């Protein structure tokens, strides 16, 4: 008690974690939207427009959160000033991506609405590249901080993209499910479509589980700081978010639902989607805050 201690706070908090979730869900929804028009899976064509509109709406919330998070919100346009632009900063590139991505999606959605096959494909390819890059960037911006042991792994962008894929499909399933109540019976999204999306989400979850296992394995055989990180964060402060919300409720429970007979019913798929979305949000939270939390121990 007589010792004078100095503690530090965490620079990036919950707003950044929510932003990662929003960009991820947006990219995941857009992947489903592009399946029909870009990759030629005809079955998904009818939901291309609601999927891309969901993606656009999710992404339009992002700048509001990010600008509100700045210390000087009125200076946000400095990020776009060519004379201030700094090529070695991941955030400078991220700004370009976040600015370009909704625009490309809007043009794509317009051509999908007009059913212009060629233009929709061209803009769809551009948008899907931007969607993946925008979400890849969120992994990169956390990864390129060597002192944040948890975040500093080249798996980060892949983990983020897998989370984006599953949370995007999950969010889209919930949106389409609610949308069905407002549509006449002949225009509703069929059970077959939901089952297809549920299947895609299930395989995404399997891959997610594999990535988390790889990361866990590497950290448990890692350097001193990595082992401390594992102990303090994954099994200590953030074990509720990591172990319970992400792994058990966010991955294992939905997997059991989706691969059981309950997962063939619409209720099962929607329940799994809700669990997956909560799990991915929890992952964004411990991933963002956890790495920095451990850093505050360095005095």
């Amino acid at each position, binding site marked *: 008690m007589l*010792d*004078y*201690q*100095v503690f530090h706070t*965490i*620079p990036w908090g919950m707003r950044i974690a929510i932003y990662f979730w929003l960009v991820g869900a947006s990219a995941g929804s857009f992947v489903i939207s592009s399946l029909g028009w870009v990759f030629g899976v005809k079955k998904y064509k009818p939901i291309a427009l609601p999927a891309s509109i969901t993606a656009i709406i999710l992404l339009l919330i992002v700048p509001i959160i990010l600008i509100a998070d700045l*210390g000087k919100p009125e200076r946000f346009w400095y990020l776009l000033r060519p004379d201030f632009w700094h090529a070695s*900063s991941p955030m400078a590139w991220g700004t370009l991506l976040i600015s370009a991505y909704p625009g490309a999606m809007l043009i794509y959605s317009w051509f999908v609405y007009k059913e212009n096959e060629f233009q929709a494909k061209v803009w769809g390819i551009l948008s899907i590249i931007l969607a993946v890059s925008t979400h890849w960037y969120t992994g990169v911006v956390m990864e390129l901080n060597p002192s944040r042991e948890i975040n500093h792994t080249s798996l980060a962008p892949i983990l983020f993209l897998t989370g984006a894929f599953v949370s995007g499909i999950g969010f889209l399933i919930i949106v389409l499910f609610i949308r069905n109540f407002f549509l006449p019976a002949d225009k509703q999204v069929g059970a077959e479509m939901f089952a297809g999306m549920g299947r895609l989400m299930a395989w995404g979850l399997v891959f997610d589980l594999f990535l988390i296992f790889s990361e866990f394995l590497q950290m448990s055989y890692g350097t001193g*700081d990595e082992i401390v990180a594992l102990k303090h964060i994954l099994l200590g402060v953030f074990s509720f978010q990591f172990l319970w919300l992400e792994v058990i409720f966010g991955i294992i429970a939905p997997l059991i639902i989706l691969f059981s007979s309950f997962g063939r019913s619409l209720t099962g798929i929607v329940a799994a989607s809700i669990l997956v979305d909560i799990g991915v949000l929890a992952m964004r939270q411990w991933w963002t805050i956890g790495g920095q939390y451990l850093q505050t121990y360095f005095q």
Partner: protein
Amino acid sequence: MPERSFGLQAPPSLGAPGKKRYAMVVDLRRCIGCMACVLADKAEFEVPLGVWRTWVSVRTVGQYPHVKKHFLPRLCNHCDDPPCVRSCPVQATYKHEEGFVLQRYERCIGCRACMVACPFNARHFLPKKRSNPNLPTNVVDKCTFCFHRVSQGFAPACAQTCVGRARIFGDINDPNSEVAKLVAANSTIVLKPEMGTKPQIYYIMPNQKSMSQEVGLLEEPADVKEDRKAHREHFGLYF
């Protein structure tokens, strides 16, 4: 000097002939933990409550009657390859060619990417309200190695006030300077050399045992945990 001349990171000047590279040696054998450096720094820059440009980390080791206190004065390492500079999206932070890592408040947007990038927690975020309205708020701030003093031939406030002469400041590229002589004659360490940032605060350790005590992540004693909890309740976990 024109705005853009050193907007991007100045090249590393450690050991470059004809260039100055300011550095600091902290002789832990001489530090008595009086915190005069912290106070001098607070006074020099009107550093607000809850944040520090420099601070002294204290650890009590051993058990009664063989108890010792270890002190570790901390400040920005003014790295030769600073990660904060490369992370800033608007070039608000830059490395001066003589080694100072400085902040341009009029450019900073407060995104805190530099704080996330710094392995040493050397940066802090200024609060919304300050007692002096002319000072910047809501932007990131850091130790400047007292650029305003050094450029006029004075030592930094913390080095100037240090009663034990534990903090010694100078040009490490000049072989006749005190810092260069101390680094040459003693076994020194820098914090977290594995981060590859080439820190320019050299520590002379009091003994071999304390090296492992001072540096790195450790299990905290119960009283420190309590203090940490109180701090979090007061200031919150994150910005």
